[in-house]
């Protein structure tokens, strides 16, 4: 969101309380959604639950095109549409709900830094594995991404998306990496997260913050999605405190009526092997 639009939206947002009919849009859960989008969507859902803000999840095949920034998920609140975790956090802050108010300056700096770490390494690794690894792209990503569309649109859209992601990887310097190096990066990232978490229940001791929501979204999705190989989830599983962390958040925030469908949907996942 541009700066002027942000300021404008914040002003409008502050005026109204959170409505009951807020909706979160994402691609179709069973057939279409991919690992990276699922992770982002789960992160936003976890964050909203941690803030105690009700939201309904609605699955649409064209969610990506509906979104104002082209990325999913996005929430429709009142008469505003906000996409991606960063802007959504600021939007809820303007409405008076925030999880990171109790942090001091140094902790806030660390929180932002770790969120960037997840975005920089984990999300990029997920995108790489989905679109730049030929096996996964051919067996899982392309068929799933284009499943709502008929021939020939499905081929065109899938290859277009793949080409765009590969160009992005080249631009940021990941094109020269092979799969092993990417798994190694994921492992390093998880190691950093694990060391930061230590034995605490959440990253900043007693209270969850947006960092916890983001980490949960990504790790839980990685653990419960089946890809062509299990190596990614194995990398995460080797850190027991991260596993306990995911389980804890799942039990605290997703154990109500929605939880059953959440975990069922994720654990089914893409299972073409």
């Amino acid at each position, binding site marked *: 969101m*541009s*700066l*002027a639009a942000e300021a404008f939206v914040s002003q409008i947002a502050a005026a109204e309380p959170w409505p009951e009919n807020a909706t979160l849009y994402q691609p179709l859960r069973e057939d279409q959604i991919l690992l990276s989008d699922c992770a982002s969507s789960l992160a936003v859902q976890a964050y909203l639950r941690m803030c105690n803000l009700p939201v309904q999840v609605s699955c649409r095949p064209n969610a990506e095109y509906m979104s104002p*920034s*082209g*990325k999913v998920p996005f929430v429709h609140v009142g008469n505003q549409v906000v996409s991606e975790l960063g802007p959504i956090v600021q939007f809820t802050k303007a409405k008076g709900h925030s999880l990171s108010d109790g942090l001091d*300056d*140094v902790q*806030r*700096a*660390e929180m*932002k*830094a*770790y969120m*960037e*770490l997840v*975005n*920089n*390494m984990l999300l990029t690794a997920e995108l790489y594995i989905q679109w730049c690894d030929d096996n996964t792209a051919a067996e899982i990503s392309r068929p799933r991404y284009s499943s709502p569309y008929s021939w020939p649109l499905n081929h065109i859209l899938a290859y277009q998306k793949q080409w*765009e992601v590969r*160009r*992005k990887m080249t*631009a*940021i*310097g990941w094109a020269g990496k092979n799969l092993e190096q990417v798994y190694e990066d994921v492992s*390093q*990232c998880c*190691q*950093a*997260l694990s*060391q*930061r978490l*230590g034995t605490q229940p959440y990253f900043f001791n007693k209270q969850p913050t947006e960092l916890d929501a983001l980490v949960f979204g990504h790790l839980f999705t990685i653990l419960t999605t089946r890809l062509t190989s299990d190596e990614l989830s194995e990398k995460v599983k080797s850190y027991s405190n991260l596993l306990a962390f995911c389980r804890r958040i799942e039990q605290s925030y997703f154990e109500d009526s929605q939880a059953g469908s959440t975990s069922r949907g994720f654990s089914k996942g893409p299972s073409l092997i």
Partner: protein
Amino acid sequence: MAAPMELYCWKGDWGLPSVDTDCLTVLAYAKFAGAPLKVHKITNPWRSPTGVLPALKSVEISSGSVSRPSNIIIHLRKQKYNADYDLSAKEGADTLAFVSLLEEKLLPALIYAQWLDSKNYVDVTRRWYAENIPFPLNFLLPNRIHTQQLERLRLVRGDSTLEPGEQLEKELYHDAQECMTLLSQRLGSQKFFFGDSPSSLDAHVFGHLAPLLKIKLPNGKLRQHLDSLDNLRQYCTNILLLYFPADGREPPSHKVAPHSDGSDFDVEPHKRRNQILSVLFALGSMLGYAILTGIVSVHHVQAQAALAEPHRTDEEDEEEE
């Protein structure tokens, strides 16, 4: 070590050991870790062993050389030059996180300020690269880098119609200013980020902030924000003084062109002289061509002959008649 490792990097200017962020990061890390490197400061990326700068050439590398700061630092660590040796596990994790923060929030704004902002690009960046890269690359390379950076920004933000403009600048600078404030808060009043001895995070932060501090850009909003953060400014100057004393001279004034009147005065005499010289050259070549083809010379000879012996023609006329 049989043969020392060789590092190829961009030349320095404005009091910096190198003008490029990645090169500065690697140079700083090598100094911090005490790695003996033979540094080649070049201005032609094609002469580097991998085709990009910075590049580290060493006999221990299987392919001969590596590029990219992260790979170079990994290789130096393998050779036991490790500036992060004393860091705890948590500090190592923090390093990774803050480096990601730098790359996601600060680097796009730095690239915009140097390469995509039109005034900065034309007045400072393109001029420096065009003056310092050897012929004929100096015509191709700056423009190519400019296009590449714009493309990269478009891909990373997912918007293929992005144009450099005020709105984009505001967004990027806002993120960068927030990032710098966060770094300043994390640094506090310490000498380096993790205590008294520098680590790889210090190398990365230095590599990103030092060009911002030293290179004088006409559109200097980011620089103003950095100036307001005293501890970061002090931190960069400190590292320059301690680890790069030889490069820390102030640049000669004719290279710096921050204010328009200064640059006019500096450039004017050369411009005038060049104009006069080129006019003289043009006149001289025209005359030479005329003489060689015989236009002017014939007239001259005839005129001279006519002048020298006017009486002879008169006599001839008289004789003829």
